[in-house]
């Protein structure tokens, strides 16, 4: 019996080869994964190239120079004035107003959901918030124009608030971005280990102290990322401002006056009949490049913040 077993083992051992065999399935999947990664990077680079090329054409046109674009405050393509500031300030205005709404509310919602809400409330509220994020932005645009603007005119007076204004666009944009920020922040807060909360509770911390002094600081990198993503979204948001913020560049810091944002301007210009290689046509590429640079810088900042403040739990 024993002899037999040994024999079997020997026989079996001789049939198992240690030579590498090709695993075609693995290789094919690996190739596909590489291709999809490569493809998306390639497309992105292509877009940046196209944007840069057309923007370069714009700055080479007679009567346009980069310095004037960056320093003057009039954007009037028909008389060759391309100062970016009126468009930039209204973009900044709407973004600022939106974030003034979205950051405090979004953080509040997130802290409530993650620290205070009982599981049943949380599992009801979170999907509702996410539905809010799924409403088409054009609907938000109408909402700004037909609800928020009349409301502002009612409060501040019809002679103060124009029909198109950056204020109502910014406020509604804040509502649009709120779920984004609250959802990302809530994820960051929930990721803070339960043991950290218990340690603080066991030292006699109240719920509020645990939430604000332990959980929020521990989740700071995620929260910072949420805010930066929110800002990027606000800077790039188009439909709401195109509908409600006004058509026509206007160098103003008043939220009650109509002023066109960078995105709003691109929509209006590209929506008309533009001839290829006209100065208007090329100008929108330059504007697009500006937007791209703004969001790129924001992303770099956010990654730096995430790295700087990332907390190691164990």
């Amino acid at each position, binding site marked *: 019996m024993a002899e037999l077993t040994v024999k079997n083992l020997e026989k079996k051992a001789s049939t198992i080869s240690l030579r590498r065999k090709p695993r075609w399935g693995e290789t094919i999947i690996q190739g596909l994964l590489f291709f999809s990664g490569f493809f998306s990077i390639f497309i992105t680079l292509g877009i940046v190239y196209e944007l840069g090329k057309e923007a370069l054409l714009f700055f080479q046109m007679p009567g346009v120079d980069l310095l004037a674009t960056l320093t003057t405050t009039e954007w009037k393509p028909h008389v060759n004035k391309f100062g970016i500031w009126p468009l930039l300030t209204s973009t900044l205005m709407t973004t600022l107003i939106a974030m003034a709404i979205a950051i405090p509310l979004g953080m509040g919602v997130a802290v409530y959901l993650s620290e205070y809400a009982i599981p049943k409330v949380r599992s009801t509220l979170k999907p509702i918030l996410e539905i809010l994020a799924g409403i088409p932005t054009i609907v938000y645009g109408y909402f700004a124009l037909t609800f928020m603007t009349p409301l502002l005119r009612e409060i501040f007076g019809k002679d103060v608030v124009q029909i198109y204004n950056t204020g109502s666009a910014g406020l509604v944009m804040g509502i649009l971005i709120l779920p984004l920020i609250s959802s990302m922040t809530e994820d960051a807060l929930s990721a803070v280990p339960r*043991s*950290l909360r218990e*340690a*603080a*509770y066991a*030292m*006699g*911390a109240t719920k509020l*102290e645990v939430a604000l002094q332990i959980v929020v600081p521990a989740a700071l990198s995620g929260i910072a990322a949420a805010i930066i993503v929110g800002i990027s979204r606000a800077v790039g948001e188009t439909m709401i401002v195109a509908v409600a913020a006004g058509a026509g560049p206007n160098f103003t810091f008043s939220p009650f006056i109509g002023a066109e944002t960078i995105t709003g301007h691109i929509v209006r210009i590209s929506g008309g009949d533009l001839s290829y290689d006209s100065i208007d046509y090329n100008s929108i590429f330059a504007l697009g490049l500006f937007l791209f640079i703004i969001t790129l810088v924001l992303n770099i900042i956010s990654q730096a913040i995430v790295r700087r403040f990332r907390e190691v*739990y164990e």
Partner: protein
Amino acid sequence: MNKIVIENLSLQYTDGTESLRGINMDIREHAITALFGPAGGGKSTLLRCLNRLNDLTDVEEISGRILLDGENVLDPQTDIIALRRKVGMVFARPVVLPMSIYQNLTYGLELAGEKRRSVLYEAAERSLKLAALWDEVKDRLDDPAIALSGGQQQRLCLARSLALQPEIILLDEPTSGLDPISTGKVEAALQELKKDYTIILVPHSVQQAARTADYAAFFLQGELVEYGDGAELFTNPKEKRTEDYVTGRFG
């Protein structure tokens, strides 16, 4: 003297598991009481009743009384913040707060409203010395606490709870993640501490229970099987189940 009197304590979790059944137990002052037994016996649950940390988990029903100096801590009128300052806790895995070493020590006192820097500093120094950590960290109190080794972190957690000058210290398997040398340091610190504090320890092994306990309580599936003098219980248990566990026949 009895510091804590537990009367007919039963607890059931929302998922239906019953964790404690009719526990009656007197816990002595200035001694180390070890709660030991196999996992799921209710040791940690009992520990977390004593500082009401169970309020955070899904407890379906809790009945009975826990008298701490004659006051029932399970009473809804109990100020749990004050309770948790009186009853400190150290967890199985060292959980340092994401702050500096020094801030970890002073955080509890600052929560309690202490602002005087000299008081905070003295408390930090005193508690670090008690936890046998002072010599290792005195030159780098402002370093992030996370930079410490696991054993140092656990002693920092012990020091952190001592800084609040509690009367009772609960330790839930405080040395389960530590090497033998660090474990020895923590155990030695506990022997010193019991002169001034009431210590309730869930040890991570029977050996540790036998080494450290003045009084020992054997828990099995939510039931207190046997409770008594440590030396007596480990050498000459009255209950068959205790004997089987202590001698390693199961568990």
